[in-house]
């Protein structure tokens, strides 16, 4: 099997401010041709050169997956972040070329669902813009409930203007009680998806569960949260003969990559299992969705993209 390129070069075709903190970017392949295939819910990981390091930030694709002429994302400028969103908002101009990983999907649509109910908060709408484009193309029933601040209502209305008003519901109150009635009247075969602030997702899922929705119908997306933050530790790469400091706000995988070591990885979200590495010494703090209970308990394996260490040193077979 020949290795597929893991990095592609994208040219900024348009960078359009939607609000003081929201900016939409459209990318086309720097070398022409079509963008790689993606599905609804997929994200793009951009390599963002900020002072001192390269951030790999993930952004949901909002473009219709069937249209491979471009990739589009919307970025919220976050105050007090590591600088990725500020870089995109301030430094990136039309015509610039940015490196990105191939699209990956940790939030796919359930293909067997008869109907899709979506609940989003703020910028969490982005994956659902791709969902809705796919649902409209396929004629699959859907319903969206979007929660946002009053001052951003018009921005989100604009993004959803082309879709039937009967399917789009925008709420500017923080009270999710409106969802009670919505969740109680969904026909069998409906699947539920939520994306947005953790508090909104947890609350929406809790309400659904209380109304008899089983876990298998409930799907949520959160970016990076699991990989971020934690006690700093030292990763010893036995085969490379390196000791890598993993800071409080970097992932183990990012630290390994920053040290110049090529580590296996694919989804970078704890789902696919590609980045599995053997642990020689130390106790991992598992944050992935891939290993089973027995594998976790053995402390012999770690998924570097999201998991960290419970011990000050973690010796890896890498």
């Amino acid at each position, binding site marked *: 099997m020949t290795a597929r390129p893991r990095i592609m070069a994208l040219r900024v075709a348009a960078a359009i401010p939607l609000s003081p903190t929201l900016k939409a970017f459209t990318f086309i392949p720097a070398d022409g041709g079509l963008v790689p295939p993606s599905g609804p819910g997929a994200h793009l990981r951009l390599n963002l050169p900020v002072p001192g390091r390269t951030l790999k930030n993930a952004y949901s694709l909002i473009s219709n997956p069937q249209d491979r002429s471009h990739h589009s994302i919307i970025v919220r400028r976050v105050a007090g972040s590591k600088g990725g969103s500020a870089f995109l908002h301030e430094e990136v101009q039309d015509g610039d070329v940015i490196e990105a990983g191939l699209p990956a999907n940790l939030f796919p649509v359930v293909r067997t*669902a*008869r109907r899709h109910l979506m609940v989003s908060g703020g910028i969490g709408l982005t994956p659902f813009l791709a969902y809705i484009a796919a649902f409209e193309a396929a004629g699959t029933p859907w319903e969206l409930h979007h929660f946002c601040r009053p001052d951003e209502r018009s921005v989100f209305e604009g993004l959803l203007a082309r879709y039937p008003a009967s399917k789009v519901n925008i709420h500017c109150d923080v009270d999710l009680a409106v969802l009670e009635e919505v*969740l*109680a*009247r*969904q*026909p*069998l*075969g*409906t699947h539920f998806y939520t994306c947005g602030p953790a508090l909104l997702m947890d609350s929406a899922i809790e309400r659904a*569960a209380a*109304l*008899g*929705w*089983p*876990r*298998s*119908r409930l799907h949520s997306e959160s970016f990076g949260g699991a990989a971020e933050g934690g006690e700093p530790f030292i990763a010893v790469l036995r085969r490379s003969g390196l000791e890598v400091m993993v800071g409080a706000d970097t992932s183990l995988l990012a630290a390994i990559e920053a040290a110049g070591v090529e580590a296996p990885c694919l989804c970078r979200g704890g789902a696919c299992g590609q980045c599995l590495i053997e642990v020689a010494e130390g106790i991992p703090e598992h944050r992935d969705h891939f290993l089973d209970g027995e594998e976790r308990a053995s402390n012999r394996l770690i998924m570097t993209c999201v998991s960290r260490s419970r011990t000050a040193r973690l010796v890896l077979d890498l």
Partner: protein
Amino acid sequence: MLISDIKSRPVYERLSLDGAGRRHLVLSDAPRPLGEVIDGTDGAGAPLGYWIVAATSAVDAQPQAEAAPGNAAPVERRAFRAASHLLDRLSHRLAQETVGLRLYAIGEEGFIWDVARMAREAGLEPSECFTAHAGSLRRKVFCVHCKTVTSGVTTSLAVCEGCGAHLVVRDHFSRTHAAFMGVQADAEAPGELPAVEEVFP
């Protein structure tokens, strides 16, 4: 000649009410006391229906509400003339249902897997539909050669109702067909058939 240890052979546990459900519907292919087929119905707060196949024309299938023990919600009972009658009403009921329903089926495998298939086609998830075996072990057999389903098979060899082939009844179970696979017994040596045994009483 029976091929055992096949993973598709369903394994059943005793039914137990899923407390997360908001409405429950229990289906039985024979009259059985409710407490005998499912645990946890005493004190259940959510509405519960219990539909049975009475196998007699002396029932009218009309819902009969009945107070349940404890503080439980009332049980709505319906008796049907035949399994076909019950499945017909079930398809209407599922078409009107909303997420929150839990469905339970108990009886012979042909019946419970017909229910499971109907539930799946209506959009129920496996985690919302539960099955348990009771009664005869007789099987529905799907002829892999002519695709005909022969019902009520109790023997290790069965004659296919479609093509007349002598079929070995395997443990290989298809949830799609709600039937066990049958393959021609004398395919390699025509006319040479093993002894027929009564194995699914």
